[in-house]
């Protein structure tokens, strides 16, 4: 029904739009008052928005925003969170206590709420969006890495490294993180899906990328006001968003099943 190759194709074109977008002759901000809310034509295959800007051009420049924001946020969160969590789990004691309490506090905020509040306080703009999402995003990775490290730290090879006088950071980097990377990678994959939605959500609320720059979230918001007369304005960015999140989630599921030895053995 919705196969992996289809998901891969969608994600590849997402990346392609983000990377090649600047090289294309796009006019995402050019206003054509004759074409307000007009349907597709030769210049704009997906029609025009509420001020007469070509939707396809805006879609492609929005792809760039969502792609780079999600890659950056997930990269920062994964690296920071895994390091903090694994170190806390390995070192234990007071460090672990403090880190665990900080994680508890962050987890007390329901999902997107803290991101919305942070983005609101920092003020609109793409860098603040990245900062807000990263400062919340690391927590999940830290919790996961910590729990995994706790189950690993008594393994023989870790003990041996410790006896040899290896520094905690080196042990974590070379002897622990490689072994717990599988669940972290799965978490990072799903992380991309939630960051794509969160970025669009912030822009939808007016807390993300500022006009006239195109973001899929702000395109949806602009479109909701004109649904009765021009529903394509709200449908186009939403379909793009849905396809990408769906593809990421689908591949995440496949990756999880594949990395989980138990299901692989029982299936094969």
């Amino acid at each position, binding site marked *: 029904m919705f196969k992996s190759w289809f998901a891969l194709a969608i994600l590849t074109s997402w990346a392609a739009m983000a990377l090649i977008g600047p090289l294309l002759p796009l006019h995402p901000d050019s206003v054509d008052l004759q074409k307000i809310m007009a349907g597709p034509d030769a210049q704009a295959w997906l029609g025009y928005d509420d001020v007469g800007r070509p939707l396809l051009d805006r879609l492609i420049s929005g792809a760039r925003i969502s792609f780079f924001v999600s890659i950056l946020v997930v990269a920062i969160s994964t690296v920071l969170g895994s390091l903090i969590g694994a170190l806390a789990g390995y070192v234990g004691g007071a460090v672990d206590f403090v880190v665990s309490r900080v994680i508890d506090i962050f987890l007390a905020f329901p999902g997107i*709420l803290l991101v919305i509040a942070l983005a609101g306080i920092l003020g609109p703009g793409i860098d603040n969006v990245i900062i807000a999402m990263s400062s919340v995003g690391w927590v999940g990775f830290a919790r996961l890495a910590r729990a995994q490290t706790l189950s690993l730290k008594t393994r023989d090879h870790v003990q041996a490294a410790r006896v040899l006088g290896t520094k905690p950071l080196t042990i974590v980097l070379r002897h622990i993180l490689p072994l717990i990377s599988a669940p972290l990678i799965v978490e990072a994959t799903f992380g991309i899906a939630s960051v794509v939605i969160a970025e*669009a959500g912030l822009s939808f609320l007016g*807390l993300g990328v500022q006009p006239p720059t195109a973001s899929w979230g702000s395109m949806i918001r602009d479109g909701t006001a004109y649904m009765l007369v021009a529903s394509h304005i709200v449908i186009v960015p939403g379909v793009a968003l*849905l396809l990408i999140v769906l593809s990421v989630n689908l591949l995440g599921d496949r990756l999880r099943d594949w990395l989980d030895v138990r299901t692989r053995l029982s299936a094969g």
Partner: protein
Amino acid sequence: MNFLLSRLASVLFVAFSVATLVFALMYLAGGDPVDYMLGEFAKAADRDALRARLGLDLPWYQQYLNFLRGVVVLDFGESFHYRKPVVTLIAQRLPATVELAVAGLLVAILIAVPLGTLAAIRRDTALDRGAMFFSLLGVSIPNFWLGPLLVLVFSLGLGWFPVSGRHGFASLVLPAITLGTALAAILSRMVRSSLLEVLNEDYIRVARAKGLHPFTVVTKHAMRNALLPVLTLLGLQLGALLGGAVITETVFSWPGIGKLTVDAILSRDYPVVQACVLLISITYVVVNLLTDLVYAWVDPRIRVGGR
């Protein structure tokens, strides 16, 4: 009893820290609310007077203590924007959010339990695959798009429900579906996998061998045990539901806490933001505590092990 006390202590600690964090965020946020309230060209004397009345001229630790005292006695000061006590605003908006959250939860359960059960019983059939694709779709569709889409079809197209606002039952339907879909998707997966695990147990085989009706076996014997992990997940996911309410309320102009929060953030109405964020987080923490307690109450194994 020890279990209860240690859980209560950690909830109190987290609540206190959340309050501190919320205060710190707003304090460090910068931007003078007085500018916003009076405009940039107000007289210096007027600004100082207002600042003193709001307690903004005090050093940070005084403001912090005032804030903490306010949290305890439920006095969050006055909204910069509405010029009303924050508590009054929240009291006005709270019923709408509770209504929406309960309705969203009901939608999620009413979809997830039958769907997950069917998928588990008819494992590896087209029905199962269809249900799981729906689940994947449900977690992937952003609620700020699902909402407008539902409005497009059911309000503008078919004219069944109002576009926005809160006027009677009809206006609750679309927001509740918008809010409940993601949770329904996650729950149905959980119901399915949890039921599949239970269905392999010996006592299910016994029940079947006794010749009990398959419906009775599933609903009476399997479901009771299968729903335990689902219950825990439900508690954890309520946070996502509350977060989702913030966006759903904005989509439908639903006059609840979520919309109040977003409006307050956009207009830099700090006292309202502080109180709303605190309220939502503490609700979430308390719900998780209750989930733990209910779990212990429902499952004798945990209750006995805890003693």
